[in-house]
């Protein structure tokens, strides 16, 4: 299948892998967006329905999904900013340092966000 070629990792540079991850996280975020919107609009069915959803999802068991989701979101955002810069024709010579910076920022922001979520869910 030709569209699967986006996700070929073997023998490809980190730039290409970042591109594939950008696509993957994009798909994940779109699916999440749909889920999140239906989750939020459930309030029109009444306060109890909404609070029922909240009681299931804002629990330590769901934390792992949230952490992964945040990873996807942070990566997509930071990488997206890098792509915006390059696609304006700027900074091509610095593309390697910028790529490493992107991954570093992703890691730092993700760890921070995960920690905050952990604190919130654990009720500290």
């Amino acid at each position, binding site marked *: 299948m*030709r*569209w699967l*070629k*986006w996700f070929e990792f*073997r*023998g*490809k*540079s980190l*730039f*290409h892998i*970042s*591109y*594939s991850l*950008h696509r993957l996280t994009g798909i994940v975020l779109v699916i999440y967006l749909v889920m999140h919107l239906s989750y939020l609009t459930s309030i029109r069915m009444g306060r109890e329905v909404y609070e029922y959803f909240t009681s299931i999802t804002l629990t330590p068991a769901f934390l792992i999904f949230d952490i992964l989701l945040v990873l996807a979101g942070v990566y997509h955002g930071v990488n997206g900013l890098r*792509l915006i810069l*390059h*696609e*304006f*024709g700027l900074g*091509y010579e610095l*593309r390697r340092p910028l790529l490493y910076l992107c991954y570093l920022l992703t890691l730092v922001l993700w760890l921070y966000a995960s920690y905050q979520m952990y604190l919130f869910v654990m009720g500290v």
Partner: protein
Amino acid sequence: MDVIFRVRRFDGEKSYWSDFVIPAKKGMTVLEGLYYIKENYDGSLAFRASCRMGICGSCAVKINGRPVLACETQILHLNSTTIKIEPLDNFEVIKDLVTEFDGFFTKHEAVKPYLIRKEDRYSEPEELIQKPEQLYAYYKYSLCIKCGACYSVCPASSSRDDYLGPAAMTAAYRFIADSRDEGDGERMQIVCGDCGVWRCHFAAECSEVCPKKVEPAKAVQKLRFRSSIYMLKKFFIRW
């Protein structure tokens, strides 16, 4: 030292692998290995080759998963006892390692890759002045040997057949950046179209594999910038 060349063959109907033992010496290139197979094992092995010095672009093949020029790759530098050789991706295979290149050249032709000047003085030409800085602004992009390696790794090219591809767009940028050229408008139309710059999302693999370090990813990004300006101008002028 003996290495095994595992070559992906295609006889018009089915694809299969053939193994050959090559006695590799220091300095022996993969292309010389392919000729060795042809002369000693199987004369029907089909591949393209000409200059053997990395300037004609005929011998681009995938070696151990990465597209390179076979004539420039030394067997012993690959550090592996089995060398997997396959034809380039995103091209239709005609036979063994020979792929269909007509489409690639048609795309190159589509961006009008020739100097366009308002006055075409054929019988009494005049010298055009171009300072060295102006030459260096585009010279790197004129080194493209049309080998097809960039096209082989481009994910946008694998998803859509009509995407112009890194090589064609580098050629377009090479002329747009040439101080002697006067045909910006014509080329921009083609490059800003449906299968042009907007399909590139900077996987930048093309720049990684280019054997001549032409940096097609840079050319495409610069072209994007010019395309945005062009489209904005067109929009406001129409207003």
